[in-house]
């Protein structure tokens, strides 16, 4: 039992490090190589966890090899985009200027029912409302409607709207978040000053967010005695 426990720990740690090194792409949209790597790694990682006859090295070696291949291939593809078409699909235009590209649809093996379903899911009940439809590299369909069916923007309506600044978490569970403060160009002393000015101490706050302009939103702890909504500054 202790062997399985230790093996699980080792594999868990190795997978975490490898996924971290692979970057955010592994977590979000996947390219073919990324998907293959992720699937293989998850399969390989599970082997020594469940089978005591397999040494942990049998999983670590392939996992590290896959990591190296993944990093090297992304490096090569970034430097030499010409090779990208070898491992990565290109976007395909399915509807251009309202005209359906039947040949593309056939080669992608997408039925009209599937296309209509995708278009409906994006809020367009009729094919006639679509100006362009492009099947992206990640397999998602981008639908661009005809001007008559597109939602008007603020600028088209003549509405003046101010851009909302981005808020960052600068304090969480009473603990100061230095990365958050760094993002808005402030430091711990500034935060403590601002909190003191509003009559708060860090330990009485559940969360504090702030933006580049130094505006704060405070969420007090529910058990701190002072309840209520965020306190805007």
């Amino acid at each position, binding site marked *: 039992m202790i062997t399985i426990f230790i093996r699980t720990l080792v594999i868990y740690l190795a997978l975490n490090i490898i996924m971290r*090194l*692979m970057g955010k792409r592994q977590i979000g949209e996947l390219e073919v190589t990324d998907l293959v790597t992720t699937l293989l790694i998850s399969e390989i990682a599970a082997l020594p966890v469940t089978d005591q006859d*397999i040494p942990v*090295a*049998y999983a670590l070696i392939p996992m*590290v*090899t896959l*990591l190296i291949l993944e990093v*090297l291939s992304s*490096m090569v593809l970034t430097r030499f985009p010409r090779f990208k078409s070898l491992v990565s699909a290109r976007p395909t235009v399915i509807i251009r200027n309202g005209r359906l590209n039947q040949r593309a649809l056939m080669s992608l093996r997408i039925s009209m029912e599937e296309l209509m379903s995708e278009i409906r899911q994006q809020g367009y009940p009729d094919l006639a409302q679509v100006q362009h439809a492009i099947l992206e590299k990640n397999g998602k369909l981008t639908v661009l409607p005809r001007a008559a069916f597109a939602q008007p923007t603020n600028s088209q309506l003549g509405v003046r709207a101010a851009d909302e600044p981005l808020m960052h978490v600068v304090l969480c569970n009473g603990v100061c978040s230095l990365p958050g403060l760094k993002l808005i160009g402030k430091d711990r002393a500034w935060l403590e000053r601002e909190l003191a000015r509003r009559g708060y101490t860090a330990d009485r706050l559940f969360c504090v967010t702030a933006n580049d302009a130094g505006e704060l939103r405070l969420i007090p702890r529910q058990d701190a005695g002072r309840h209520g909504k965020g306190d805007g500054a």
Partner: protein
Amino acid sequence: MKSFAASLILLAVMLGGMAWNAVYINRVADRLNAMLDAMPDSGDADSAQAAAAVREYWESNAPYVGLSVGYTVTDRVSEQTAVLAACAACGDFYGYRSALALLRDAIGDMRRLEQFSIENLL
């Protein structure tokens, strides 16, 4: 760039580790084979002493060999060294010869993954 550098370092460490491991496994296998070659053909008192030495050598190296060689193979080697020692101690000639042959076979399997060949790759 950090990922690239980290990958290169990992690659170097892994290749170094794999090379060292291959040398180590082959050395253990060579030593065991040499000890088996030097053993007498019959299961007498000398062979009992030699078989005990083989078993002792294997047991001191088995935990490290087991880090990279499947436990099925290492268990076979352990089993046959034990059988060899027992047969040599009680003078069982046929058991002794049989254990010797099976042990050589297990040692061959042990070093198989550490030797580059198309057969192993496939």
